[in-house]
């Protein structure tokens, strides 16, 4: 392995950016491909697939055998609101491989008692997200029902291209939210990315069931990154 390739790969991994190490198994030469880099032909198609799935593997292209080792940042879920839904969502998401952080400035809600073993910030999203910015391997679910708390975080999630953005509330509530986000400078295309009402439509009724619906929608968003509605690479 080229020492510079290793250094570059580790730098990408530390910065939570996706990268693939492409090794020619014939002559041991390797190089780093970053997400968004253009690679032509069969190799390029295999690389695009590996970025989406996160699966590593060998590929035959140009009469050679390449090994693609896909290094994707661990996806994670930021939840705005230390509410009943979040109490169920945090442990379930962690088990599914999506570690959770919860942000809620209301200290009566954001207590370690209610949220054992979860990264919990009893602060405004503005303050936490300034320190710890969102990124495209982060999902954001806003579930406080309070525009003062949710709106800034939703706008930040759209700007950071979070792979999933969901917001709790009825269609009527969401229509009002759309007006406010437009006023904050969000574009219509950005706003169309918000999942609202939140969660896959499984008829969820209880807070724990809503948490399942949100987690399922998050997983679906992660596993279909970069695909259009027909399943082709965008």
């Amino acid at each position, binding site marked *: *392995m*080229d020492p510079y390739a290793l250094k570059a790969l580790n730098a990408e991994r530390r910065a939570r950016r996706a990268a693939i190490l492409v*090794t020619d*198994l014939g002559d041991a030469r390797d190089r780093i491909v970053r997400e968004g880099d253009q690679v032509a032909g069969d190799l390029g198609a295999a690389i695009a697939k590996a970025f989406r799935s996160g699966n590593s593997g060998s590929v035959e292209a140009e009469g050679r055998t390449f*090994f693609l080792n*896909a290094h994707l*940042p661990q996806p994670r879920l*930021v939840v705005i609101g230390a509410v009943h839904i979040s109490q169920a969502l945090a442990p379930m998401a962690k088990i599914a491989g999506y570690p959770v952080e919860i942000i809620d400035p209301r200290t009566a809600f954001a207590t370690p008692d209610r949220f054992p073993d979860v990264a919990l910030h009893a602060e405004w999203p503005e303050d936490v997200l300034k320190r710890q910015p969102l990124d495209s391997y982060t999902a954001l679910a806003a579930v406080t029902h309070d525009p003062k708390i949710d709106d800034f975080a939703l706008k930040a999630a759209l700007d950071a291209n979070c792979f999933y953005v969901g917001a709790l509330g009825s269609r009527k509530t969401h229509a009002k939210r759309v007006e406010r986000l437009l006023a904050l400078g969000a574009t219509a295309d950005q706003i169309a990315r918000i999942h609202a009402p939140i969660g896959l439509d499984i008829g969820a009724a209880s807070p724990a069931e809503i948490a399942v619906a949100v987690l399922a929608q998050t997983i679906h968003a992660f596993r279909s990154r970069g695909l259009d509605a027909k399943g082709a690479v965008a």
Partner: protein
Amino acid sequence: MNDSHYLDEARDPLIIAEGWMKDGKDVAIATVVETWGSAPRPVGSHLVIDAEGNFHGSVSGGCVEGAVVTEAIDVIGSGKARMLEFGVADETAWQVGLSCGGRIKVYVERLG
């Protein structure tokens, strides 16, 4: 957010390999490139080895690491990458194998 939550630098084989390289050590990197059937570590998993035989990470559940380390020390010496293949151990022969019944291919190369 804080990367240290997500990249366990003290146990991450590729981070350790970079550290070893900075310390002037000779290093080999072993990578699982293919698996068949039941295999304990997925494709892409790493074991990193230095010239003294110190290692971090894994390519199996501890079944073949010893053999990979031995090969890796040779690879550090020669600089020539090798493809190793491990399957179920032959019961009559005393050889390294995977008791789980799977087969794996491990690519071993020198760093630099």
